């Protein structure tokens, strides 16, 4: 068994920094015995001389534009879950430990990733951005990997250890209660090696069963069953902003961040998404919903981003935004791009619908449609606009129909009973009587003729039999 442990010493601070667009000094604070203390401070805050353990008023005295954020354990767990979803690409045996550790069992994945060093390189290079500093330690047992990772925190690279290395480490790195560590110090036990050389049963009598269980897990004499990571059924991620954003364009970077998390999730679940929802929490505590619909399920960030950019141009913010949340519930299977070998210039259907999406995003949903036939004798109802790609063709009428139909029939003057459209028309063919439509209160009672303008255009006109008015309804292409 080979375990890898990721340790993120300042995970809470990383989360806050994801919502920051310009660098500024930040601290994450906790409250202990009614005193506000600094828990984590970022690099800019360090430059001002702020260290963890300081009180907040002291820190604010050192840096005027300091921003303090409360420690949120729930958000930290959510971030660990997202990291677990990302690590699912490498192995299914993942578990979290404590507030900021991720344990991976990778012995079964070594063959796929061509060895320990390759795997370690991939893990460090493909770690999602914004989670530095971190440390990655490989060892034979999970507790040993945890110990090494915590001991070498902020190394930002992968380190390999074996069990005998444990002996030289100080007792303070053990994952036990502080009181027990103090007891060990007072007994004169400073290194793990000294501890492990003592007889086990007397240790368990002195420190309890849990302590000795921990030591057995540390040395590998007892192993727990392999954990299995379960992916959540729905996807939800959120991002809080340090400063409220009032410009829609400045949302692009946080949106990309959330969508890349969605991409990892979709990759882990091997599915694609066609609808998802952005919820914007506004300054006045209202929530603005921004739903996104895609014509075809997609799963790659590179495909989705151009559409989001187009749609973002049309988004109007009702108030400045404090935080952004992305949620997706329904997923579909990934559609594979297939290209016909023998036909050149045939696009795959993903490209066809991406074009429709792009047009709709810029021009509006209603402006783009396909044509479809409807089984109705009334000409204005015998067609309808359909979603692109779903035009239906039915049996066409045996009489000729004009290529172009006017949006609204145009009334014609009549002279001596004959219609006039720039000049008197003479009728070529007709009448074709269409008298129908009584069932939905749109009855028509018309005689349709094909008329010609001089020697020129052929027009489709009708005479309304109820009031004897001539109308122009269509123009033939011939």
């Amino acid at each position: 068994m080979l375990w890898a442990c990721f340790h993120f010493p300042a995970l809470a601070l990383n989360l806050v920094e994801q919502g920051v667009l310009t660098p500024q000094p930040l601290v994450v604070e906790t409250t202990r015995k009614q005193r506000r203390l600094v828990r984590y401070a970022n690099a800019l805050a360090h430059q001002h001389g702020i260290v963890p353990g300081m009180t907040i008023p002291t820190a604010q005295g050192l840096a005027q534009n300091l921003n303090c954020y409360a420690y949120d354990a729930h958000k930290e767990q959510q971030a660990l879950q997202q990291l677990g979803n990302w690590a699912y690409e490498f192995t299914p045996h993942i578990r979290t430990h404590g507030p900021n550790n991720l344990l991976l069992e990778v012995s079964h994945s070594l063959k796929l990733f061509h060895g320990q060093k390759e795997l370690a390189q991939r893990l460090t290079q493909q770690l999602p951005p914004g989670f530095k500093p971190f440390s990655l330690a490989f060892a034979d047992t999970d507790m040993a990997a945890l110990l090494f990772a915590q001991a070498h925190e902020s190394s930002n690279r992968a380190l390999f250890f074996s069990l005998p290395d444990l002996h030289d480490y100080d007792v303070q790195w053990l994952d036990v209660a502080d009181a027990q560590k103090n007891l060990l110090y007072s007994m004169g036990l400073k290194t793990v090696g000294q501890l492990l050389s003592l007889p086990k049963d007397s240790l368990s009598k002195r420190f309890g069963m849990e302590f000795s269980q921990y030591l057995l897990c540390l040395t590998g004499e007892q192993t727990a069953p392999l954990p299995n990571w379960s992916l959540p059924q729905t996807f939800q991620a959120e991002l809080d902003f340090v400063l409220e954003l009032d410009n829609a364009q400045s949302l692009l970077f946080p949106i990309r961040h959330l969508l890349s998390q969605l991409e990892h999730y979709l990759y882990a679940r091997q599915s694609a998404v066609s609808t998802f929802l952005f919820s914007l929490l506004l300054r006045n505590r209202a929530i603005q919903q921004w739903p996104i619909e895609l014509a075809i399920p997609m799963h790659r960030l590179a495909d989705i981003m151009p559409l989001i950019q187009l749609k973002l141009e049309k988004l109007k913010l009702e108030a400045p935004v404090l935080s952004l949340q992305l949620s997706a519930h329904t997923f579909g299977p990934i559609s594979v791009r297939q290209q016909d070998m023998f036909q050149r210039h045939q696009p795959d259907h993903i490209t066809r619908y991406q074009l429709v999406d792009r047009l709709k995003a810029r021009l509006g949903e209603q402006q783009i449609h396909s044509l479809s036939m409807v089984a109705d004798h009334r000409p204005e109802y015998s067609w309808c606009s359909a979603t692109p790609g779903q035009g239906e063709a039915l049996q066409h009428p045996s009489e000729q129909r004009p290529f172009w139909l006017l949006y609204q029939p145009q009334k014609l003057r009549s002279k001596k009973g004959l219609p006039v459209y720039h000049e008197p028309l003479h009728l070529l063919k007709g009448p074709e009587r269409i008298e129908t439509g009584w069932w939905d209160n749109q009855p028509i009672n018309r005689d349709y003729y094909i008329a010609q303008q001089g020697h020129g255009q052929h027009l489709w006109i009708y005479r309304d039999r109820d009031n004897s008015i001539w109308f122009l309804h269509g123009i033939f292409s011939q």
Partner: protein
Amino acid sequence: MSAAKPQLNQILQHPAIWRAADGMRGKQWQPLETIATGFHTLDQALPDGGLPCDSVAEILCPHWGCGETELVSSALASLSQQSRWLVWVNPPWLPYAPALRQQGIQLENTLIVHNKQDKDILWAMEQCLASGACSVVQGWPHNPSPQQIRRLQLAAQKGHSLCLLMRPQAHMQQPSPAPLRLELGALQHNIQVRVVKCRGHWGSPWLRLPRHDLEHSAAFTLRTAANKTIPQDQIPQTPPSGAGYSQHSTHSPPGT
């Protein structure tokens, strides 16, 4: 004698020889891919026998509805058999679905884009052409500039689509980078068309193309290239006799 002929072909393929007629095609002997309009005389006047499949063809009309649709309808029908979109951008009227079906155009590949502003129209045309997912894009912009037409040409080449740019005849004198320009005249017994500008030729005089006879055809027959080569006077003049057809009347309709 026959041995000399293959030598002549070999000589003509030598890269140092340039012929005006095929200088545009470069050294490879590759004819441009074209789609026939179905009108024999027009196809002969066009270079390579039809409308080019991957560039802009500008059609200048005195008014909409003077035969330009008939000119391209059989080309549209055969292009709609590909699984690519047939796009109309800002058409003057609505394409009527039953008539499209009668012409043989596949309805599931049709796409109509409604917008009024020139910059939106040209943007939509460029997106459709460049994507490669459209076989033909027919657009009615108000007044595109030569730079915009050049961009459409580049997009059409990139996506291998035909762009039909419909413009009023008043814009004839404007210089245009479109490789093919057709001008239509007023509609009479025949469709009057002439090639103003094309690759490798000087253009053509006014051609008279036969129109489909609406008056004397009974049931609708699908237009094919064969029908259009029949001259006007040889089309059978028999009156319709199909059942279910209401009275054929050349007399005046019932009074007011």
